[in-house]
Structures are given as C-alpha cells and as structure tokens.
C-alpha cells in the first residue's frame, strides 16, 4: 500500500495507519497470551508469575526443572501416552470411515444427501457438555465408560465432521469418471478406490486425519465424563492441575503443546499448498 492515490487527504492516510495500528494490537492480543507462558515455564521458583530475578535476566532464575518434573511424574507420562494412543486411534477410525463416506456423499447418486450430511456434521455443532451427558448415560449401558474403546469411539465421532469437510473439499475437484473408468477396466471397487481415488484425495485425507487427531488431543469435556483414572489425557491432567494445585509444570506442558501446534500448522500449510498444486495441475 505504498503511494496513496491522489484523492487521499491527510485524514485518509491517518485513518489507514490507525487501522493498521488497531490490527497490530489485535494480533498482539491474539499471540502475546500464548507466548507469555513460554518464559514463565522456565521459572526456577514454583510461581505462575515473573520473579525479580527473571526480569533482571539472571540465569539462575531460569531452569528446566518443570520439564524434568513432567518426565519423572508418572501421572504426566501416562497422560501423554494416553493422549497419543486415544488421539491416533480415534483419528484413524474417523479418517477411514469418514473418507469412505465422503466419497459416497460426493456421488451425484447419493440418496438423502442433505439430511445425512447434516447428521454426520452435527457433532461439530452440539455443545460438548450435551454430548458428554448423553454419552455417559448411553455408554454406561454398554460398559464403555472408563475404558479406552469408549473414549476412542467418542472422540472419533467428534472427528468425523472434520474429515468429511476436508475430504469433500478435495473431492470437489475430483473427476468421478476416473473411478468408473477403473471399474470398467476390470478393477474391483476396493482396488479402484485404493489405487485411483485415494492417491488423488490424499492431502484432504491427511489434513482431515490431523484435524481429527487435534480434536481428540485437545478434548477434555468428554474425558471428564467418560474416562477413568487410567485414561486421563494431557488436557484432563491440566484441567485438574489448574483446579487443584497450580504449579509451573502445567506451563511447561503448555509450552510443549504450543510447539506441537506450530508443527501442526506448518504441516497443514504444506498439505494445503500441495493440494492446491495437485488440483491446479489437473
């Protein structure tokens, strides 16, 4: 926006810079609260705030003791393990079922498309507390409360909408006749699906799977209601930590999670560009 048009008065230009200033302030509001926990997690004292030593940049005021505490505390190691096991299993379940279903939904022959799509996307809209209450009543009768399968099924149901949305988005550029061509050349439907459809929609499948994983990884309300002490995940452990005994271990965990989300963001951006390239070349 260098070189303003001639008809711009001084007020236009002032307004332009004021707007830019406001935009930067809002960006700061978005990002500073997340960044502030990173130095706080290096606190040598068991406080949730900056000590005098930290502000004076005294190296002794900083330490990695809270990161060490994560590794030595069995509660946290179990929570980390659980988060990954449940997240990966739920993401696989949601991605497999969701990808196959998205292919069916993209077909022009699909009956009751509107109703079924709305139904499959509904876990995204219903408040988690309602889902948690319903699942608690219903899963109890099947003995699924307090078990890994129960949580995996619950989290997979939450991840399904994201898989449907991302895969459907890649399928809009997908030529349905390719699949039919495969069939007419003698491939079985499974082989045609695997060899023709999947490679073309892979970016959408992977980002859908990542969305499903993150949904499970970040989810705490269902865990609060459905998990026993054995299935506590990282957010669940943070939740009780914040309620019961606040100490900087939580900040160290939070910092690790921020690093993880940066990694996820980079991966998704990479996938998005790849998907655009693939679609552009078709």
């Amino acid at each position, binding site marked *: 926006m260098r070189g303003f048009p001639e008809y711009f008065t001084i007020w236009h230009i002032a307004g332009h810079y004021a707007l830019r200033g406001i*935009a930067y302030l*809002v*960006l700061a509001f978005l990002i500073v609260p997340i960044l502030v926990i990173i130095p706080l997690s290096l606190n040598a004292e068991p406080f949730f705030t900056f000590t005098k030593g930290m502000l004076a940049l005294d190296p002794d005021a900083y330490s990695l003791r809270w990161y060490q505490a994560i590794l030595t505390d069995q509660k946290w190691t179990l929570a980390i393990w659980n988060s990954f096991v449940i997240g990966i299993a739920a993401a696989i379940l949601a991605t497999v079922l969701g990808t196959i279903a998205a292919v069916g939904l993209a077909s022009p022959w699909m009956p009751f498309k509107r109703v079924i799509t709305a139904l499959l996307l509904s876990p995204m809209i219903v408040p988690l*507390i309602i889902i948690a209450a319903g699942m608690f009543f219903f899963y109890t009768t099947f003995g699924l409360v307090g078990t890994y399968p129960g949580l995996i099924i619950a989290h997979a149901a939450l991840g399904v909408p994201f898989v449907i949305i991302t895969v459907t988005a890649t399928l809009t550029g997908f030529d349905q006749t390719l699949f039919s061509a495969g069939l007419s050349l003698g491939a079985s439907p499974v082989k045609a699906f695997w060899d023709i459809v999947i490679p073309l929609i892979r970016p959408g499948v992977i980002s859908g799977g990542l969305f499903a994983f993150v949904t499970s990884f970040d989810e705490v309300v269902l865990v609060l209601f459905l998990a026993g002490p054995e299935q506590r995940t990282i957010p669940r452990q943070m939740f009780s930590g914040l309620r019961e005994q606040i100490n900087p271990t939580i900040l160290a965990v939070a910092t690790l999670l921020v690093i993880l989300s940066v990694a996820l963001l980079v991966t998704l951006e990479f996938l998005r560009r790849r998907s655009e390239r693939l679609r552009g070349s078709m």
Partner: protein
Amino acid sequence: MAEATTNLRTHAAKRLAPEDARNAAREVRARRLRAFLFVAPLLVFVMFAFVAPIASMLFRSAYNPTVANLVPASLVAIADWDGEGRPSDDVLGQFAIDLKRLANDRTSGQLAEEINRFLPGTSSVVKSTARTLRRVDDGTLAQTGPALLLDANDAWAEPGIWRALQEAGKVYTTSYYLTALDLEMTRDGSIQQRDTQIYLKLYGKTLWMALIITVLTLILGYPLAFHMAQSSTSRANFLMVFVLLPFWTSLLVRTTSWIALLQTNGVVNSTLIALGLTQDPFELLYTQFSTIIAMTHILLPFMVLPLYSVMRGIDPSYMRAAMSMGSRPIPAFLKIYLPMSLPGLSAGALLVFIISVGYYITPALVGGTDGQMISNIIAFHMQQSNNWELAAALGSLLLFLIIALYWLYDRFIGAGNIKLG
C-alpha cells in the same frame, strides 16, 4: 441427485424400449445403492456413537423409573388415594413393608433422594424411618405397619409427603422440564412460576455473555480481517499465522495463559503495580470479566477466518471507485464494503455465538461463581448433585436452543460454507 434421477427416468420413458428403460432404472438403483453403501458404515457408527446417546439423553429428561422400580406395590396401593388427608392404612402398611425391604437392600437412600426433590426436607424423614423399620420383624410389621410408620415420624400423617411420593413415582414426567424452566405444578394442575428463579436467569446470563463475547470478537476481528484483506497475499499469509497459531493451540493452554496473566499476583497485576498505576492488585481472575476476556481470545479466530475469506473476495476497485468519485471513506465503507462483507460477518457472529452458548471448560476454570454458564450447571447436576434427569432436561433445552440457532445459520448462510484453515 434428484434431478439426475428424474432426467434419466423421463429420458428413459420417452425414448427407450421398455426393456432398456428397465435396465436404466436398475442401473440408477444400483448407483444409488453403491453411493449409499459407501456412507453406510459411518452412518451406523455415528448413529451408535453420537445420535443414540443424544436420543437417550432426551428420553431420560422425561423418563425416570427409579421410584417406580423401588416401591412398585406402594405406588399401586396409593393410586386410589384422592390426595386429601392421610392415605388409607393399606397404603401405609404396604409402604412400611416396602421401606423395610429397601432399608435392608441399602437402597432407601435413593428413595429418600428422589422424594426429596419434590418436597425438600423429606430426605431425613425417609432415611430415619427406614432405620427404625429395619429393626422390626416381618410379623409385627405386617400387623402394625401403619402405626409404626406414624410413630416413626409425624410427617407420615400429612398428605404432603405422600403427594411427593406419587409425583416421584411417575415414570414419564414433565417435572424436570418444569424445574429447568423455573416452573412448578400446583396441586390443582396449573403451572406457575417458582419463587426463586435459578435456571431462566442462568439461561439469560449465558445468552447475554455469549452476546458480549460475539460483539467483542466482532469489534476486534473486523479491523484485523479488513487490514489483512487489504494487504498483499504474502503479507496476509504471514499475518494469518498469528490467527491460526492460537486457533491450533490447545484450549487448555490458552485458558492456562489467562490464569497466569490475570491472577492476583499475575503478569497483568504485576505490570500495573510496577507502572505505578495501582497499589493494590485487582481481583481479575475467577470473575465474569475473566470468563469473557478469555473466551473472546479463544473464539476470535472463529470470527476472523470467515470474515477474512469473504473480504478477500471483495474487489477493492469498488471502494476505490467510490472514493475517486468523491465519497468520503466512512460513507463509502458503510454503503459499499460493509454490506459486501455481511456474509462473513454473520457467519462469524453466529459461529462464535453458538460456540459460546455451550461453552464449559473456560467458565469452569476461570469463571469463579460469577462467570458460570448453563453448561456448568449441567455438569454440576451430572457430577455433584447426581440429578441426572434435571441435567438431561437442562441439556435438552440447550440443545433445542442450539438447533434453532443452527437452523438460522443454515437458512441465512448455508452450513456447507464452513471452511477450515
């Protein structure tokens, strides 16, 4: 899909021989079936994992067989009672026998709790009577049951507790919905407001807080999205990182940072004191204020993303044209840009509003008593007071509210327009 089917059918009927038409129709059915078979596994899964649980919650909000299962015989006996005075000795005797059995099964506490919901203060009456009756042998109980009951507590001579038993014994009931709406049924069957309004007030507060949060995200999100839409693509992509990073960061992490920032000797208060702006720290955490500010932060990306994707598609030459022809910036913005950005604005606003109405975690962690929302009271009834039926009724009302909002969203914006990342 529908047009394709009809096209093929009319086409077949007009031009094709009967046999070909049959083949075509069979092909249509086969294709429809094949498409459906792709969706079927997920549909079955979602039905079991998600739809059935929600349906069971809706059912539970109006269905409570606990008392009917505990004292079936007493409920049969009391069915003939006219609701005035004391029920007959047959009823009292049957109830004494039932209560003794419950006391020995250690389930009399359940009965006490259920009756207590309809007549507060009777829990102890039922429990103490059950303890008394436990020690009586069956023979004596069969003969002098009514007298024993009346001796154990005066309340049994009053009609109130028996009416509560009758109410609690109903298997299908609207009473939880009435409670959830702060209403109660009077003795003559009319419905009136309760003296203390708890839940309606909470619904009102939840909607009000959701509205404030929506307005705040709009005030903050609009200029940001506008600025990003005006920037070059590479710059906008760079700024987008700052929106997406919070979006992808765990909810618990963001709530944690607000606790670190807002607590009594946290970062904000320390800064204010260091700058000499105040001497005593403000009580910022565990208030309605902290809930609103943390939720605004958490939900801001949901406003910025749809706004930005709509604004990016607005051709800047419209604004330039208006201004080059002498319009002032603000009228040009109000008349040209704002209406064109309205789809993104309404999508973002409804999304933020819907999400915040059902929010649980952040109010639970930073809300204190003042910042609690409707979700928190549902969780309270699930976990602490164990009044699952009331929790289900409150949850069902919240669900209807969300469905109504979603219907609006779908009608005006279209649910298919949701974009991610």
